[in-house]
């Protein structure tokens, strides 16, 4: 794995992958939107069920992005690998975006179904904490000028913050909550009808591929910018 992890190699290998990933994401999202808007309204939730097709994928992607960011940060901290630091740094703003989208769409779903835009229960509060972890991580990167020191400090924040991921995941089991329990990836199979499961799966795949597309382009940008800075410093 580390053989591919030098910046030059990464640029060579990732370049041709990006258009394929982007296309796959667009197709997946297109299929997901079509299936999502042609599905019948839910017998309990009516047409608000369509919010699920964008809310759940955003939340999944936000959590996956955090796990990948924390993992990259840990590899950067332990192996002192600069590309791992770059990967962690560039994942954060994308993760923050998907977290915000999950919170906003969740709120727009909560109002008609629960009668409240927001409740301070375990799932929602731990998810709001995820947004603050992302924002704190980004702020800490920006606050420390030296890149090596910034990478180390932010890595510790990212790793400690990863404790929040299982808390989000199991919050619906550990505490009583308005938020519905795990209904898709559970023992005994999904609890939702396949007419809703397929659009959800397509949207989740589309969101995931979109995240990887944007992440790779951001890593490439950061590598180019670092090379640019090195050249400018050499010239000065």
């Amino acid at each position: 794995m580390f053989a591919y992890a030098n910046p030059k190699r990464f640029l060579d290998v990732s370049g041709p992958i990006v258009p394929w990933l982007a296309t796959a994401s667009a197709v997946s999202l297109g299929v997901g939107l079509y299936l999502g808007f042609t599905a019948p309204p839910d017998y309990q939730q009516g047409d608000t069920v369509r919010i699920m097709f964008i809310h759940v994928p955003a939340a999944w992607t936000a959590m996956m992005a955090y796990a990948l960011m924390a993992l990259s940060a840990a590899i950067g901290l332990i192996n002192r690998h600069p590309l791992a630091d770059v990967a962690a740094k560039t994942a954060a703003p994308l993760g923050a975006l998907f977290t915000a989208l999950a919170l906003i769409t969740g709120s727009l779903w909560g109002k008609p179904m629960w009668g409240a835009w927001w409740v301070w229960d375990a799932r929602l509060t731990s998810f709001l904490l995820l947004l603050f972890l992302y924002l704190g991580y980004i702020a800490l990167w920006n606050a420390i000028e030296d890149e090596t020191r910034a990478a180390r400090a932010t890595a510790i924040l990212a790793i400690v913050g990863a404790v929040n991921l299982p808390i989000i995941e199991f919050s619906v089991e550990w505490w009583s909550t308005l938020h519905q329990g795990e209904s898709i990836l559970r023992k005994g199979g999904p609890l939702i009808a396949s007419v809703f499961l397929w659009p959800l799966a397509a949207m989740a795949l589309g969101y995931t591929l979109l995240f990887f597309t944007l992440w790779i382009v951001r890593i490439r940008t950061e590598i180019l910018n670092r090379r640019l800075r090195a050249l400018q410093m050499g010239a000065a």
Partner: protein
Amino acid sequence: MKEFLDMGGYAAFVWPAYGVSVAGIVVAIVIVWRSYAKAKARLAALETRRP
């Protein structure tokens, strides 16, 4: 069509949710792509000046 736009009376919740998601994602794509193009152009300019 009107029925579709009405979203069973939940239009005020469904459409803003989609609107915010599309807007957020489109803005992110534009920002990510622009900064990539900018970095590439600046590096190319610098490298042609000092081969």
